[in-house]
Structure formats: C-alpha cells, structure tokens
C-alpha cells in the first residue's frame, strides 16, 4: 500500500551522478600566504525577529568547486527566565550549535549529535568569559548558531580524515558570528571575542612542516596539530583554548607558537567584526 499522503523518495536505491573532473589537484592546494586568513563577509541584523543576529560567510576555496562556510547566528534575549527556573544572580547563557542537514557531505539529522553538542559547550565557554553576566539577573539568553554550509563539498574525496579538523574551523566561525550577534543584541561584554585557528601542516612536496593561519584541512596533505582560540584583543586574554594533535618533539614547532598564530588569526578576525559593527553605527547615524 503506497503512502499517498507524503512525497516519498524513489523505492530503490539511487546513486548520485559523479562527473569526471579533469581539473588537476593543484587547484585544491593552498594558494594563500601562510599567515593570511581567508576573506570574510559579516553582516549583523539579518533576522528582524531576534534581538540580535549575524551572518558570516567565509570565501570559498580557490578552484572551481570550492565551498566556503556560511553561518547564521541569532541571539534571543535577555528575557526573563520561566517561572519554574531556579533563581540565578546572573544571566543564564545557553548555546546551540546545529549543522543544517545538508551542510556537510554526510547528512546530519535534525537532532543534535554529539559533535554538535560538544561544539555548543565549547562555544558557551568562549562566550561566557566575555559577557558581563551580572548585569542581567534572573534572565536568560539563547545563542543559536546554524551552519548553513560546511567546508567540504560533495566532490571532495571521501576518505580523508578532515572532519575532526574542520570542527576547529567551525568553532572559530561560531565564536566570531556569535560575538557579532551578541554585540548586535546590545548585551554588555568586556570585549568582542573573536575566534582564530592555526595548524601545523605537512605538505605533499617534501613533507615539510609549516604553520598556517586559518587552515583548510583539504588543502594540505595532512594536519598534525591544530589550535582554536577565543581571544579578547583589548584585554589580551583567552576565553577558550582548544588544542589537539601531535607536535614533533624536536624543532621549533611548539604549542606556544601555534597558540600565538591562532591569536594572530583571531586578531585579524577581530578587525573585521569591529569594521562591520562600526559600519552599522555609521549607517544608523547617517
């Protein structure tokens, strides 16, 4: 008995068409300088119904079918907590990070899986340090980040272990977009927090190690270690540090340089946030 109420997919299994690409591998290698971050587009106030919102787009990779990351963030609140909630002398911050089902190569479900929950917790740590929470007692703020488009496209090779490294980039983007949305909502912060990523990568030719800012795992042969920081530039403080990987025991590549590079990347991103926010202020005045 066919289900006529819903639009169902085809009965049998189908294979998506895969076209031969004549393009060489060279296009997918990193073209930027090692200390250059990708151009970003940031706009605040995109969702009228939310008290603050922002949209961040990272420029697609070089090459024909690159895909940039696209993130949207909405901030709801500060609003009063439900009556059933216990008293809190502070603003209660809750963060939700969700990939759109179509954002990654592997389809994501509608329920948040463990990696999304993990990102939410990391984002919460990054934001909580920056917010002056005692100015809003008994109120709650929800920060919702949706990743509309991830970094890998359907055409990219499947068998590369890039997803775990992409999570760092996703977190960096989440921190930046959430920070802009919080500023748009007018919630007091000690500083605008921004996210930056740096990685130690090995490249195909010669396998030489180098440190790069804003890495894209697909552009490199392998990623050895990566670090994501949430950084407050005016206070010179780190609200969240996430490092993983293996650094060679010998040589100059140590975690201090890696963290310093990540901080450098987040300083670059911070310039963008302040430029975007001051543009909004100028527009509203003029």
């Amino acid at each position, binding site marked *: 008995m066919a289900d006529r109420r819903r639009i169902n997919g085809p009965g049998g299994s189908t294979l998506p068409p895969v076209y031969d690409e004549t393009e060489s591998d060279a296009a997918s290698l990193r073209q930027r300088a090692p200390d250059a971050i990708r151009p970003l587009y940031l706009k605040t106030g995109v969702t009228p119904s939310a008290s603050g919102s922002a949209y961040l787009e990272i420029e697609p990779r070089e090459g024909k079918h690159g895909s940039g990351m696209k993130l949207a963030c909405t901030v709801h609140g500060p609003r009063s907590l439900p009556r059933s909630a216990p008293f809190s002398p502070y603003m209660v911050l809750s963060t939700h990070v969700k990939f759109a089902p179509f954002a990654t190569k592997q389809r994501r479900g509608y329920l948040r899986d463990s990696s999304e929950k*993990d990102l939410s917790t990391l984002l919460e740590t990054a934001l909580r*340090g920056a917010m002056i929470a005692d100015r809003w007692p008994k109120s709650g703020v929800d920060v919702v980040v949706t990743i509309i488009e991830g970094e890998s496209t359907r055409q990219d090779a499947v068998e590369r*272990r890039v997803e775990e490294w992409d999570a760092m980039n996703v977190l960096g983007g989440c921190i930046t977009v959430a920070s802009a949305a919080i500023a748009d909502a007018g919630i007091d912060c000690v*500083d605008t927090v921004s996210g930056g990523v740096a990685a130690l990568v090995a490249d195909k030719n010669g396998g030489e190690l180098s440190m790069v800012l804003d890495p894209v795992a697909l552009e490199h042969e392998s990623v050895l270690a990566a670090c994501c920081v949430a950084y407050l530039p005016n206070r010179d403080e780190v609200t969240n540090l996430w490092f*993983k990987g293996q*650094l060679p025991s010998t040589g100059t590549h140590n975690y*201090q340089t890696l963290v310093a590079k990540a901080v450098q990347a987040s300083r670059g991103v911070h310039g963008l946030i302040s430029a975007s926010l001051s543009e909004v202020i100028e527009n509203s005045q003029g």
Partner: protein
Amino acid sequence: MAQQTLLSPAELAYLHSSLSLSPPIRPDGRTSKQFRPLTAETGILPGTNGSARVCLADGTEAIVGVKAEIEKTADPLGDDGERYREGEWLEMTVEIPGLRDDDAGTVFLAELLREALLADGELAKKLWINRRFHWRLYLDILLISPPLSYPLPLLSLTTHLALLATRLPRLKSEGDEDPMFDDDWEAAPFLYPRQGGAAAAGSRPSITLLVVAVGDSILFDPSKEELAVADSALAVSLCEVRRERGQSSMEVDSGRELRLVAMRTIDPPSRLTPPGVPSTANLAASGTADVPLQQKQQQTSDEVPQEGVWKAPLGGTPFAVLDSIIQAVLEKGGVADEVLDGLEGVDLA
C-alpha cells in the same frame, strides 16, 4: 556540568584569598602539586578484555570496562583510505549518575577523553588485525558515585588503567585469512605491553589532568570547593612515549617522554557563584538609608573589585597563565611523572 556549591560569597572570598597565597593553603592541606590519594585495581570484571576501578579519597569512584569485538573492515581494498576512519574503531560511553547521557557536560567529557586517546593515532594501529578485519573497542566509563567534584581526572586515570590492563586474544592465523585466535587466555598479549623491547616502546594511553589557576597559584587535581573559586580551569591531556630501551639498559626508567596531545579550557563553575555585597553598600549591615552614598558605592563596586568581597571572575585567562599551567604539567619529574609512576605500581591482573 553545573555543580551547586553551597558556599556563601564570604566563604568564597576567604577560600580564594587563601588559595592565592604563596604557597597556597588548600582546604584539605595538600600542596599545590599533590594529588588526592587514590586506590586503584585492575581486572575486576571477568567479562571484559580489560577493566579497572579507581577510588578517590573524597569518595568518588569509577569503573571502566573495555570490550573488543572483531569487525569486518568496510573497504578492504583501500589500504590507506581506511586509516582515516580509524577514529570510529573506538566507541566510548560515559555514564554519570544524575545526568542524562546526552547532557552537554557528559558529551563534552566523552569527547575530551576520546580525542586525547585518539590524538596520536597509535591506538588504531594496535587494533588492526589484517586488511580485512580489525578490532572494535568499546570503552564504557561508569562513575558509580555521585559526581562530588569534576570527575575528569578520575575518569581519565581509570580509562588509562583499563587500557593498560586490556588483553586481546593471540592471533594464530596469518596474513589476510579469516582471523583465528588462541583460546588460551594466559597467552593473550596486552594491548599496551609493559616489557619487551620494541613492543613496549611507543606511546601509552593518554592521561588527562585538570589544572586550575587561582590568582597566581596553579593547583592540580582541584576539589569541588577549589573549582568553585578558580579563575580558570584547563584540561591537559598527556601521552607518555617510551623509547626503546636497548643498548643503554643502565638508565633506570628515564626513557619516558611526555607529549602534549590535547588541551581544552573548562568553563569554571566559579562564574556562576553568587556575588558578595560590600558591607558599605549593604543596607542591612550599615543600617542607614543613605541613598546617594549607596548608589555611589554600587557604581564603584561594579568596576573595582574590593578586597574580601567575592566577585565571580570576568574575562578570559592571560596566555602567560595558560603557559605556566602547561609548563607545570610537562615539567620533568613533575605531577604527570608522579601520577604515571603511581599507576605503574598497579598490578595488571
């Protein structure tokens, strides 16, 4: 993980100032680099490939069971390709009483432990049988007491011990045949052998230490009360790499090298503690309703922290503090060495 500490702002301020002294005075009399005493045993669960139980002095207790299953490798042709999916060969669950297993804090803990174990990529090599088959490891971490303090170091040490105690049946078949195993459990080799030259060399399962900074002092293995006043908390995962001890057998156990594999900032619960009110601004204490003065006090107390009045920490951690935490962890003959030496002394059943 939201843990309610029932400490008043005055108690918090007192604790914070005594912990920021040099040397810090901790409520339980430990030195800043001392671990809480713990009892550990392995091989407590006969139905597992390896198991361990660790009981901390404050009454928290965790057990870990490791079970291994044979699994067909999905893509036997891809010799290299499959290596990238090796992270899926380890399945990990963390169970903490009173918390849902999909609670954000539990998920965070599980991811933290998992990424530390997989960071060096050595574990997957040990699980490889041949090109068609591999072991799949199930790591089940159970906290069997209520979470009295942040359970991260406890769970990590228990996991470390359980993996050290894990044995896999000895392989009898060769090459890419269907695997056949020796049914003598006594002959089963350890996943991480302790002795025996080349086999014992290489990296060992990671351990994760929780370190907090209070003022200028750095405290290891914080208790719940210490965590409640911490300015910042950092989970540092280390991995011991052993060099092959061949020609220079004169060295006594110095072939240990500690390697940093993962780090994460933990949101310190101190941010959620109630702020104190200075008695000058407190109407009930001063008894005068001098409104303009009180307003002035309110404004100043917003910005300038007053001595002895508790205020939840604001902002992040300067990198210098993070750096000194990491240096203290990686220090030769430091806490990590002490913990690893202690765990070395546990019999592997």
